[in-house]
C-alpha cells in the first residue's frame, strides 16, 4: 500500500472519530407518579415464600405493584426464582439449574408440604389479570450462568415475556429489568409494550448511556452506590429516561427516595407509605 493510501486511510479514520465522551441529548419527559412495588413478590420478610404466586397476590394487595425474579427452564418456561439453581424442599439440596432442567424435573419441587415453592410466570399472570389487572408487575430477568453465556436463553426469555404479556392482555402493566444486553435488545425490538430498564449496580451514568443506546426505558438503580436526589431524577427525565430504585426499606431511606420522585421504588416494607411523610411530591414533568 502506498504512503498516500496509508495517509488517506488514517485521515479517514481520524475524520470519522466521534467525541471521546458522548453526552445524552435532551429529550424531556414527565416522570411517572412514583409507583411502589413489593420486592420479590411479597417482600423479603413477608408471610409467603418469596417469588411465588401467593407472595405476588399478597404484594399486589398492599402496594402499587410487585417485583419478581425470573428464570427459564430447559423447556423455555419462565419460572419465578431468584437463583439460577433449583433447590429441593429442604432449600439446601441443589437439584440443578433452571436452564438445564425440564419442567417435569422442576415441578416435583414446586410445592412442598402444601405450600408453594416455585411458581410459573404464566400461572401468575393468569391469576393476577383477574384479581389485580391494573397493578404494575416488574420482572427482574436474571442472567443464566450455569453454563455457556446464556445468550440463547436471554433471547428465549424475551420472546416468552412478550408472548405472555400479549396473551394475558397485560400491555403496559409489565416492565422488565435486566443487565443482559441480548434480553433487552430483544424485548425492545418486540412490538409488545414492555418498559425495559438496564440494571445499574455501580453507577448511574454508564447504564443510562447503555439504556439510551439500547432504546430502553431507563435504568434500575441499586440505591446507595451513588447519591440520588430530586435533581438527579429530574436530570434523568430530562434526557428522556426513567429510573427504578431498589431496595428501599429503612424509614430514612424511604423518606429520602420518596422526596426524589423516582418513577418506581421497590421495597420489602409493606408499610412503605407510612414513612413517606405524606402525599406524593408534585411531579415536575415537562412533556
Amino acid at each position, binding site marked *: 500500500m*502506498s504512503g498516500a493510501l*496509508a495517509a488517506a486511510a488514517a485521515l479517514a479514520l*481520524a475524520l470519522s472519530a466521534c467525541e471521546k465522551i458522548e453526552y445524552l441529548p435532551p429529550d424531556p419527559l414527565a416522570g411517572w407518579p412514583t409507583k411502589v412495588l413489593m420486592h420479590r413478590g411479597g417482600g423479603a420478610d413477608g408471610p409467603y415464600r418469596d417469588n411465588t404466586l401467593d407472595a405476588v397476590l399478597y404484594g399486589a394487595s398492599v402496594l402499587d405493584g410487585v417485583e419478581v425474579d425470573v428464570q427459564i427452564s430447559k423447556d423455555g418456561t419462565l419460572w419465578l426464582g431468584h437463583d439460577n439453581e433449583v433447590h429441593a424442599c429442604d432449600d439446601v439440596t441443589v437439584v440443578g439449574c433452571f436452564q438445564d432442567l425440564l419442567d417435569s424435573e422442576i415441578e416435583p419441587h414446586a410445592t412442598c408440604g402444601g405450600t408453594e415453592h416455585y411458581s410459573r410466570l404464566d400461572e401468575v399472570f393468569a391469576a393476577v389479570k383477574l384479581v389485580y389487572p391494573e397493578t404494575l408487575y416488574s420482572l427482574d430477568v436474571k442472567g443464566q450462568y450455569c453454563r455457556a453465556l446464556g445468550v440463547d436463553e436471554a433471547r428465549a426469555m424475551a420472546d416468552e415475556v412478550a408472548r405472555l404479556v400479549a396473551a394475558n392482555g397485560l400491555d403496559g402493566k409489565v416492565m422488565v429489568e435486566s443487565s443482559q444486553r441480548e434480553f433487552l435488545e430483544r424485548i425492545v425490538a418486540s412490538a409488545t409494550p414492555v418498559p425495559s430498564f438496564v440494571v445499574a449496580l455501580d453507577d448511574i451514568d454508564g447504564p443510562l448511556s447503555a439504556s439510551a443506546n439500547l432504546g430502553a426505558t431507563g435504568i434500575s438503580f441499586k440505591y446507595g452506590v451513588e447519591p440520588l436526589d430530586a435533581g438527579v431524577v429530574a436530570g434523568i427525565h430530562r434526557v428522556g429516561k426513567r429510573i427504578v430504585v431498589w431496595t428501599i426499606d429503612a424509614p430514612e431511606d424511604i423518606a429520602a427516595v420518596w422526596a426524589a420522585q423516582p418513577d418506581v421504588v421497590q421495597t420489602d416494607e409493606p408499610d412503605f407509605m407510612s414513612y413517606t411523610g405524606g402525599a406524593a411530591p408534585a411531579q415536575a414533568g415537562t412533556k
Partner: protein
Amino acid sequence: MRSRRTVIALLLAPAAVGRAEDPAAPAPVPEAAAPSGTIATAPPEPAVAWSRFSVHAGWGYYEVSHAGASYHLGPRAALGLFGGWGLGRSEQDGTLGVSYAHAVLAPAWGWQPGWAAKAIYWTQSDPNYDWKNLSLVLGPRFVADFGDGLRLALDAGVALTFALESDRKQEFNFGSPTRWNGSVCLEIEYRLGGR
C-alpha cells in the same frame, strides 16, 4: 475539582522496519587483508550499531501530545511506553500508555506496513465530569525511514474505551466514553545509537 495535569513522558515503539538486518546484531567481520603486493581495496563501511532503544514524540487522538521510549525486541517488533498531555483545545488532561508494534511484509513505496496495539489510560476533566478511562487501540501502522535513525510512523485503528472511574459534577448532563471510536496517531521516532 480538576485532576492534576501530571504526565509522564515515555514513549511508543515503532517497529524496527525497513532494515535488512537486526540492528542489534554484531557488526559483520571485515574480510581478510589483501595479500602483500596487491592493491588494497577500500575497507567496507562499518555497520551502524543501533541501540535497541528509541525515543519518539507525536500526536494522537487518544494519545494526545505525547512522548516516550521504545525497546526494540527484534528487527520487526518493539515495545513502548509513552505519556502525554492535552494541548490546545483538547479537554483530555493526561495520558499514560503502553504499545506493541510489529512490522509485517516488505516495505513498499518507502513505507513499512505493520500493526500496533496500545493500551491507553487517560484522564479528562470538563465541566460535567472527571473521567479516568482506558482505551484499547488496534490497527495498521506505517513507518517511513528517513535514514540516520529518523523515522515517521503513522497508525490508525479502532479504539475500545471503558470508564474506569467517573465523577459527575452536576445533575444535568449524563454521558459516558464513546465505546467504539476511530483513532489516529502520528509520531517522529529517533533510534538511539549509530554514528
